[in-house]
């Protein structure tokens, strides 16, 4: 119990003090921790380095600007943006309910909502197929109504939203829990209606965590592969996003696949840098 209190206090201090508190007092670590850390860092860095070494840099520009590469990149950016918007619109209310509401089955709901984090994406894709597919639970009715989701860009957005939504819910919910309810209670005591409290107090407090959650969502959506391939198929300009294009090229033109992979690695570095600079800033939600 005391341990947890201390951790909570420490995280509160870290949240208020920003990066400064982490730098002030170096804590001694046993040597084996460094050995493990080195092995762990190598495991992540070495493969990326190996791929960079194999990249045909002289042909990089023509490879990543071929028409199929540009079509895949454009589609990836459009679908990831659309699913990020969906994640914010659906994930924020979900996080608010999970953090603030009290009803039976709340814990179960949280567990279910976070399920896509641990599910293999191909399983998610199959689940979507049996829901929105042409012979799926809802897909059949949609089909009758003239709405075809199968093999469309909408299917890609659905798959990406499915896998990315938990990232937004996690960041926002954690921020809500860390922030506590004292400002909201004060506002309510002063006579503000729930809608006003949400708009004027809760949401402004959430902005930093919402921003980092949004960036993470976008990153996850951009990298989505398994669910898309299983559920949406693969057609240039319609459903073949950058990871699917890489998968196809890997089998026939490895040079192009490596170049496109480096493009995604570069994007990921930018995204991580953006998220990190946010979490290191004082007063951020500290959700990530």
């Amino acid at each position, binding site marked *: 119990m005391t341990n947890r209190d201390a951790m909570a206090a420490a995280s509160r201090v870290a949240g208020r003090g920003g990066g400064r508190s982490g730098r002030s007092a170096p804590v001694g670590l046993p*040597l084996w921790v460094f050995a*493990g850390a080195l092995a762990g860092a190598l495991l992540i860095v070495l493969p990326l380095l190996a791929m960079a070494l194999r990249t045909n840099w002289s042909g990089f520009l023509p490879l990543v600007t071929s028409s199929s590469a540009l079509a895949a990149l454009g589609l990836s950016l459009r679908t990831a943006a659309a699913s990020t918007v969906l994640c914010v619109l659906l994930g924020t209310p979900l996080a608010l309910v999970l953090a603030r509401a009290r009803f039976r089955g709340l814990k179960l709901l949280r567990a279910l909502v976070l399920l896509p984090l641990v599910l293999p994406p191909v399983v998610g894709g199959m689940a979507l197929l049996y829901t929105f597919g042409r012979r799926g639970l809802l897909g059949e009715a949609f089909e009758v109504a003239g709405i075809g989701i199968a093999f469309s860009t909408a299917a890609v957005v659905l798959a990406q939203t499915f896998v990315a939504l938990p990232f937004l819910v996690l960041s926002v919910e954690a921020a809500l829990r860390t922030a506590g309810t004292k400002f909201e209670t004060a506002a309510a005591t002063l006579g503000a209606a729930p809608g006003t409290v949400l708009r004027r107090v809760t949401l402004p407090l959430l902005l930093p965590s919402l921003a980092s959650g949004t960036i993470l969502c976008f990153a996850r959506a951009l990298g989505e592969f398994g669910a898309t391939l299983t559920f949406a198929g693969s057609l240039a300009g319609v459903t073949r996003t950058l990871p699917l294009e890489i998968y196809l090229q890997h089998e026939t033109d490895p040079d192009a696949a490596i170049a496109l992979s480096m493009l995604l690695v570069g994007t990921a570095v930018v995204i991580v840098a953006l998220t990190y600079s946010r979490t290191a800033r004082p007063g951020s939600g500290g959700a990530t």
Partner: protein
Amino acid sequence: MTGGPRRGSRHRAAAALLAGSLVLAGCSGTPGGDRTADSGGDGQVLTVYAAASLAGPFTELARSYEFAVPGTTVRLNFAGSAELATQILAGAPADVFASADSATMERVDSAGELGGAPRDFATNVPALVVPAGNPAGIAGLADLEDDGVALVMCAQQVPCGAAAHRLALANAVSLRPVSEENSVTAVLAKVRTGEADAGLVYRTDVVRGGGDVEAIPVPQADEAAVTYPIAATRRGAETGRGQLAAGFIEHVAGPKGRAALEQAGFGTP
């Protein structure tokens, strides 16, 4: 600081690294790999990389080869031919490679990765399949030009896609698929589940699809036929398994192989 605790932590570091490498070693075991130890001193493992469409007959032929040459274990790896070729070029431990088209075999050959000349052992022809009951009422290739028909086929870069394109060309139809998959198995899966109204696969997939799919006869299919070559790899020959590989290839091309392949729907080259 004395030497004692430092040395202790160094020992623990070594122990942690050792534990880590043991975990990795445990993970790297390939299916069937442990059987080398069981099969005694003369036990040899032959690794065969074969096109996904060969899964049925090759599984059967691997068992009969193990029976014919006691102490041998045949390890099989099935995937799209292009994927397998990429793996072999990257140094994968294949002793035998069976591809679904000559172009893919040629890619491995020109990189100097073959241990002998490739030998054609089977043929296959493209086939048009629909889900059981033919919900979209497809009567032939011409119906695939209708925009309302969800056609799924392989991407042109992989053997089954190239064959489908030759078939379309021979029949003068233009195909507008809703999805281009990486392997013929993915196409078959989308037809089986009813996601696709029609799919272009191989004749052997009609056999594999069982009652879930129906074949629609198409003319000129023979003009788009593909030939399956098989060859021993350079790596297998250099590691002393050339003889075993040659024996397996002989087995596939021989009467046992012919029977198994014919039963799966393959033709004779």
